[in-house]
């Protein structure tokens, strides 16, 4: 029994180490002055400390603009998809219209196609409507891409809300839409917030569409902004600043995780248990 406990804690240490060791090196690099971080071979423990990378990243890279763009795009797409997705989920779970099963499977399968398989027609479409370098060119496709996950999670949750509540509301003379936003939606708030968090993170992290549709520096989102910095410096990568920026833009996500970890895990696993 003792040995088993010991082995368990060895395993736990390995797991924590597995998740955190790359992050340790990144943090280390971001707080070192250039003279130390560019030494070869590298020094793998802290020897000097500076904040200059964290200051430099705001001076040399329009980090705040990137953050603003990402926030606008992610929040808008999340708001739209939660609204229209919850309506569709309500129709599937409570009106139970004919063809709702094929509809759900159709959403699921189309959700599997990677963005690369539809990127050029979208690019052409936005170019024709002069929407490139416009927030709409990201908000609209992000909304669409988020639909399958949203409708699936919400429909599963709405199903569990007793149909008697819906029927009682209808019998009492509420319209379907009233029953939706006065009865079902308030009861579904836990699932709605889970979906909102998952979609926000997904939009915040999206790369290929943002890379293609936002070609102007001041319209870039953080993922593209940070990962494309290295391309602008031909002689020497400002690694310290890049890593500092990467860590800074991750902070909001880590905060979300700390606040909402139960919700995130329940959302992620909703599909896994249902099968």
């Amino acid at each position: 029994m003792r040995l088993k406990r010991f082995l368990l804690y060895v395993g736990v240490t390995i797991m924590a180490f597995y998740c955190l060791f790359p992050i340790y090196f990144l943090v280390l690099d971001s707080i070192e002055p250039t003279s130390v971080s560019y030494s070869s071979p590298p020094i793998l423990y802290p020897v000097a400390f500076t904040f200059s990378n964290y200051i430099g990243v705001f001076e040399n890279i329009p980090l705040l603009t990137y953050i603003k763009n990402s926030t606008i795009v992610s929040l808008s797409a999340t708001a739209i998809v939660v609204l229209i997705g919850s309506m569709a989920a309500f129709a599937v779970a409570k009106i139970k219209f004919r063809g709702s099963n094929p509809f759900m499977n159709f959403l699921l399968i189309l959700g599997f196609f990677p963005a690369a398989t539809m990127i050029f027609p979208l690019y052409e479409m936005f170019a024709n409507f002069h929407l490139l370098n416009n927030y709409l060119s990201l908000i609209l496709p992000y909304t669409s891409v988020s639909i399958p996950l949203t409708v699936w999670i919400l429909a599963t949750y709405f199903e569990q809300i007793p149909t008697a509540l819906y029927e009682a509301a209808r019998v009492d003379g509420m319209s379907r839409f009233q029953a939706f936003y006065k009865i079902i939606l308030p009861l579904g708030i836990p699932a709605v917030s889970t979906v909102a968090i998952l979609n926000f993170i997904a939009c915040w992290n999206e790369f290929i569409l943002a890379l293609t549709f936002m070609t102007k520096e001041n319209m870039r989102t953080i993922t593209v902004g940070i990962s494309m910095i290295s391309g602008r410096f031909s002689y020497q990568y400002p690694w310290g600043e890049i890593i500092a920026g990467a860590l800074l833009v991750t902070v909001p996500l880590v905060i979300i995780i700390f606040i909402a970890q139960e919700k995130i895990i329940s959302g992620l696993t909703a599909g896994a248990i249902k099968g």
Partner: protein
Amino acid sequence: MPKRSAIPNHEKGYFRAVLGFVAPVVVFFTIFQIYPLMKNVWLSFTTIKGGFTLNNYYQILTSQSFWQSTWITVSFSLISVSIEMLIGFVFALLLNEEFHGRKALRTVFLIPWALPTAIMATGWKFLLQHSYGPFPWLLYWLHLAKSPPYFLSTPNLAFISIIMADAWKTVPFCALLLLAGLQAIPKDLYEAMQVDGAGWFFQLRKLTIPLMIPAIIVTLMFRFLQAFGVFDLIWVLTSGGPGNATMALSPFIYQQTFNWLDVRAGAATSVMMAIYILVLVVIVWTTRSYIGRRYAQ
């Protein structure tokens, strides 16, 4: 899934109501998912002047680079997903035990998952740098390599690098999904087996794994299809290089379309990729119900 509601379907305003609730989603989906896919099908079968042609398919199906990226995509997905499921399962078994700091560790597990892939790839690009990146030097100091390896400029090592970075990001994610499956297994089943004198490995083989099959299959399916479309990681970490050693299908389509401006070849490649995915989905769909039946009893 849905069962008949007590409110009859032919009730007044049924069609209008369904239309009103579902239409926004359908409109978005049609414009931003279905139309682009159809447009790519159309592009792949036409010439610049608009006539019908099979040349685009002839061009890519006879090119070595298309089959090479197919091979890279398939091997990347297979290898990385198997590694992730294997390590993820071990991690999930450990996380299922009681220990101090279990909740904190679960939070830590979410960090790699929540990191944007593009940013994680930027970080790994630094970690794998030859002269001042820590990773090659660690391998050297631990005597696992004769000299610090050039990860991103050697074809095989570049391929290993993307698998390594992908595994780092998704092993914890798989572990959390599988953990949910483990926690859904009733505890008294284990107690019954212990009473009968079954050992740890016997319980794992005869109880845990059979009951985990549905969760494993769903996780596998999602992960495989996700890995199949890999773009961010490769584009940032290796840009498909060195040479074409890590050019999976998504970056290949992007390169054809936006770097070589060969839109129709890109469309044909997209259609081929869509076909691969449909085949995968059909395989998963049929085997899932088969395995579900087999383990239902």
